[in-house]
């Protein structure tokens, strides 16, 4: 069960996920998993009760200040969804949520995985235009798979790599942020590693904010990232910067 995004629901409801990327991965998973979203609502209602149990009235001066301050604070307009979510849509289909402003949840989710800003819609639009629909579907299909497993790790030398793998889809989505820039003669190469050794699983694109679907995922696999010559290697030639195992 380790790495199962479902186990993150508790930590998420407790606001105990400090890694923004991991949080976004979980939110991306929620978009495709209605039962998870429903469970999270119950969890958040539960943690709110923990707050109520700790209730302690603030001094009256806080009330006075707040009520005076709001006169000078303009309210945000509501987020207008591009598309109304359909109730009762199929669970596995990534569905747009009103609170997520993107038009297509799966794609936006993929974009949001790695976008530094929490609202990555504009970036998502550009990336969307640049990518083939098939690749987008593949990413979305992994993210919303009912057996999706995730893992996040910090890379040696800085940056974060996050993966979401699905055995039923046989795919793993890799997203990274903040990895140091390499000279043009070098590239980040992905490996899927099991008892038989590492299998090359492609290179991280130069535009590393873009999540990629790597290799053929098997449940016993770990994912490693190494620095290799620009064209990639047949076997890893350097020590992995990070090793992730979501299952």
């Amino acid at each position, binding site marked *: 069960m380790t790495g199962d995004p479902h186990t993150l629901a508790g930590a998420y409801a407790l606001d105990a996920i400090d890694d923004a990327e991991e949080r976004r991965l979980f939110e991306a998973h929620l978009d495709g998993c209605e039962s998870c979203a429903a469970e999270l609502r119950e969890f958040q209602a539960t943690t*709110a*009760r923990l707050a109520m149990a700790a209730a302690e*009235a603030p001094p009256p001066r806080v009330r006075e200040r707040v009520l005076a301050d709001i006169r000078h604070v303009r309210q945000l307009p509501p987020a207008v969804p591009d598309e109304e979510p359909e109730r009762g849509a199929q669970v596995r289909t990534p569905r747009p949520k009103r609170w997520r402003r993107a038009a297509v949840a799966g794609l936006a989710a993929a974009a949001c995985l790695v976008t530094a800003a929490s609202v990555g819609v504009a970036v998502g639009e550009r990336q969307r235009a640049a990518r083939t629909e098939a690749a987008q579907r593949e990413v979305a299909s992994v993210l919303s798979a009912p057996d999706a497993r995730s893992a996040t790790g910090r890379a040696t030398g800085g940056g974060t790599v996050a993966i979401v793998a699905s055995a039923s889809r046989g795919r793993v989505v890799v997203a990274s942020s903040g990895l140091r820039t390499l000279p043009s003669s070098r590239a980040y190469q992905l490996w899927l590693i099991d008892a038989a050794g590492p299998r090359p699983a492609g290179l991280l694109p130069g535009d590393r904010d873009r999540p990629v679907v790597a290799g053929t995922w098997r449940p016993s696999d770990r994912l490693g990232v190494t620095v290799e010559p620009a064209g990639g290697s047949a076997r890893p030639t350097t020590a992995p910067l990070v090793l992730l195992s979501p299952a």
Partner: protein
Amino acid sequence: MPPDTRPPGDGTLSGQDADALLQRTARGDERAFERLYDVVAAPVHGLVRRIVRDPAMSEEVTQEVMIEVWRTAARYDPRRGGAPAWIMTIAHRRAVDRVRREQAAGEREAAAGQGPGASHDPVGERVEARLEHERVRRCLGTLTRLQRETVTLAYYGGHSYREVARLVGAPPNTVRTRMRDGIIRLRDCLGVER
């Protein structure tokens, strides 16, 4: 207990009242916001105090949270888990943010495993709030020790699950699972319904 049986303004949260008030607040209704303040300020402040500890700083954070509620009320989506949950999430985030900023300057004492039983008991605490306090305390008591520790360290201590893992000496994945199991038990014990 059904949330709508509580009288308003008693320092506890009726989910439905809070929802209605928040939706009116979103339309710029200052009166509704005032009432919302009276309903949620105590739980917000209590949570903030647990995490931040410093009284003056806690007041500032509570103030920030309530202004944030005013500012972003229109972004609240009732399908996300009720107004109290939404507001408490804002409060928790703000409190943790403040603590993390302060940590850069000086070390904060880890407030390990402080359940609601560790709260000071103001004389004027209202009956309903006390009942809620007792209910949650009793339900926390039904958790295993590790479940309770992980839940309270994260929620009242403001620690991330990785920090909690360090504090309790368990692997992060175990902590994630215990948190989830603990909340499920709490949910069932408290009779949280959606």
